[in-house]
């Protein structure tokens, strides 16, 4: 695949997990996309930051806890995880509440990053 064109793909995650199917669907598409050796970025903003909250225990709602899979992303060579600073702040969360290492960006930085992409997928 060395002569294949590498595009910049961004997945924008803005929904909380479990209440809707968006978070899980996004994760599945991300894992599939990883097979195509593209330049993949994941953005977590607004309620999407809740997807990365530590300590999720879904036994009581009889739903699969898919949060451990975010820690597997590194093994899929998906290492560009960005979290919106303001979204964390208004939810009373800090980087320590998150289950993976991320880069925390301002809204302006996030907007600029979005502008650089070839493909943006919204969830």
């Amino acid at each position, binding site marked *: 695949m060395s002569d294949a064109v590498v595009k910049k793909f961004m997945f924008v995650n803005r929904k909380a997990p479990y209440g809707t199917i968006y978070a899980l669907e996004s994760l599945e598409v991300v894992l599939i996309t990883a097979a195509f050796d593209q330049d993949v970025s994941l953005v977590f903003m607004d309620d999407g930051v809740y997807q990365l909250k530590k300590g999720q225990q879904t036994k009581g709602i009889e739903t699969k806890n898919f949060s*451990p*899979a975010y820690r597997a992303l590194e093994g899929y060579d998906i290492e560009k995880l960005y979290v919106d600073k303001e979204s964390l702040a208004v939810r009373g969360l800090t980087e320590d509440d998150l289950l993976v290492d991320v880069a925390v960006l301002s809204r302006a930085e996030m907007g600029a990053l979005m502008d650089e992409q070839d493909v943006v997928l919204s969830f």
Partner: protein
Amino acid sequence: MANIEVGGKSYETDEEGYLVDLSDWNTDVANFIAQTESINMTEQHWEVINFLREYFEEYQIAPAVRVLTKAIGKKLGADKGNSEYLYGLFPYGPGKQACKIAGLPKPTGCV
């Protein structure tokens, strides 16, 4: 839906032979599924199966073949972390066959 009979007990599988309830898995079931895949389980096979189960335990997903290959290389050595070795053990694909024997769901993105 289908069922397999192992040691007088019935286990539910999907139409492709993957266990429906992952907690049903045990080594007898694994050996049975391996037989249906015409695989004679050796120590080398078990090494991969156990690795897959540990991976699933930690991340709650079945790894893509590429990810599995790399991770096996890291854990068990470069001589095992390559597709020749893994396809030698599981001719129809380490993702498909090994995950089935390990009682995991089919890897995401594996068609």
